[in-house]
């Protein structure tokens, strides 16, 4: 199938699309502000994937390689809108994490929705660090920010997520 895609065979490309599009849609949804943006990123990602598939040399997981393309496509969209990042004031944060027991009460769709509702900068760093497994160094290099900022954004993202999930689950507990 990969060889067929290298030859730009339409049927192989469609097979690959059907195989990975749903997973990659999740990636796009996590980074995008809304579903329309996610669909744009998905489309851009697949176009970029098929145009560059000959660069895949068979080293490492193919899904991992594809995922990186979609993360990069998402980041490109994010970077175009990075002026949206705004925060002000003096904040104190403890190195706190989201309560694991609360997470289990949410569906995957709800978790994704909560991640998507994070402010732009938080969302990107949270996704890159927690889901994709980038280090703060890699994040700082990719986004052009310093490592300390990346750590701060992650902490804020966790805090934000904690508050939102707690608020969301409270009515169920009562």
């Amino acid at each position, binding site marked *: 199938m990969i060889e067929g895609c290298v030859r*730009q065979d*339409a049927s192989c*490309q*469609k097979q690959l*699309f*059907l195989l990975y*599009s*749903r*997973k990659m*849609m*999740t990636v796009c*949804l*996590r980074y995008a502000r809304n579903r*329309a943006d996610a*669909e*744009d990123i*998905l*489309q*851009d990602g*697949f*176009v970029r994937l*098929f*145009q560059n598939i000959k660069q895949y040399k068979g080293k490492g997981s193919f899904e991992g390689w594809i995922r990186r393309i979609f993360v990069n496509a998402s980041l490109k969209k994010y970077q175009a809108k990075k*002026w949206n*990042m*705004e*925060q*002000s*004031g*003096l*904040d*104190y*944060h*403890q*190195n706190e*994490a*989201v*309560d*694991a027991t*609360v*997470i*289990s009460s949410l569906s*995957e*769709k709800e*978790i*994704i929705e909560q*991640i998507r509702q994070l402010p732009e900068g938080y969302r990107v760093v949270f996704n890159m*660090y*927690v*889901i994709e*497994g*980038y*280090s703060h160094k890699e994040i700082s290099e990719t986004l052009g920010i310093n490592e*300390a*900022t990346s*750590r*701060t954004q992650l*902490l*804020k993202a966790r805090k934000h997520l904690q508050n939102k999930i707690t608020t969301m689950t409270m009515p169920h507990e009562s």
Partner: protein
Amino acid sequence: MNLDGADRDIRSRIYSYESDVPSHMWDSIDQRLRPGRKKWFFWILIPVGLLGSIFLGLNYQQEDLPETPNQTILPALSTSEKTFSNQEIESDHEVAGQILAGSQLSKNPISQSDKSAAKEITRPKTKKILSVFSEAQLQTLPGSGQEARLGNLHTGDSLNSLAVIAEPKWQEDHSDLLPQRRASNSREAKELTYLESRTLFALRDEDPNIDICPSFSSTLQIKPFVEIALWGGLPFKNLSLRDAELKPYRDLRNSTEKTRSSIAFQVLGGLDIGDEIEVKTGLGITRIFEVFDYVDQTATRTITHIVTDTIFVNGQPQVRTDTNIVTEYGQRVKLSQNSFTLFNVPILAAYKFEVGHHRFFVQGGITWNFALRSRGDILAADEQIISIDTRDRVSNPIYKSQVGIDLIGGLGYEYNLKEKNVLRIMASFTHMLSDMTIEGYPLGQRYDHIQLGLSWKHQF
């Protein structure tokens, strides 16, 4: 990377989670991977099919010409002093007499068909298209007893008729090459000076029904040609309101987008039908240039500074973040070169006419337009600058890919170059019949053009 329990839980649950994908997504991707394959194919097929049909039709017609195995066709003779130097053209009958003289070279008696053919070609209407043989030329023809050869005719070939097919062309006036007494006041002589080339058909006895003068029978003469044209133009932009409340937005667009110029290139193929009509089609590209010039006097920008530090409180690390926002006010200037590139499929017809010795033509027709690419910036209705670059606006296009039809009309002058090449200078007006913008967009956008063009036409 240190993931705590919650992070790990989130990761494990959504890393491989599958979300719904819109059903049209593959079609959109396929369209981008193979741009225009579907939409262009059909439209390119139209002129190609049209040209193909024309050439097939032409070939079919050429098969009607006398091309039997027994026929010998001599190469065309060019108009020259030699051709006319010894001629004495006094009347139609003399022309016919000369033709019959050609026939008399045959060893066979003249058939009835030869006589009728001779009558046919002596009609006043066709007189100017005939040529006559000079005494010297007749001496070189086969059957004259000499060893001289002319073209593929050989001594001893059995001939019963000869005719000369000439193609009237408004060439240079060669009357100075004729004897002075003829050139001064002979209408016939002047007419002959406009003959460009002629083909000599030599027919044998067994082809009595062949029209010895096919080019000037009731069927029009059809000749293919190619034409390459380059246009420069002045476009006039027309932004139309689709919502009356958006008049200020239209005014803002008009004040920020200045139309500059346009260029176009066309490769056309077509047919000359007789001397006066031509039809042609082909492919072309038009590019319209604009400048987007926007000055926002009340622009603001925000710069965020984040300073982070880790401190220890009772041995526990705490991260302290200090975030400052600086807002700046000022003037924002945005200057972009905008362009719209259109792919054209023109279908045109022209009528040629003469004024004195000058040859003019009027032409008109339609052009199908397709948007190939747009570049630059415009203002959105909320006064935000947005890109109109085709590559940036796949999911939310402003411009249609299939723009629609233009009406074209124009006037031109043609100047004969060497052989069958013609140089043309043209002026035309083009009017777009439909908007370039999609239906849901608040403003309609179209252009009219005044264009000046130069083209080279080659006939086959």
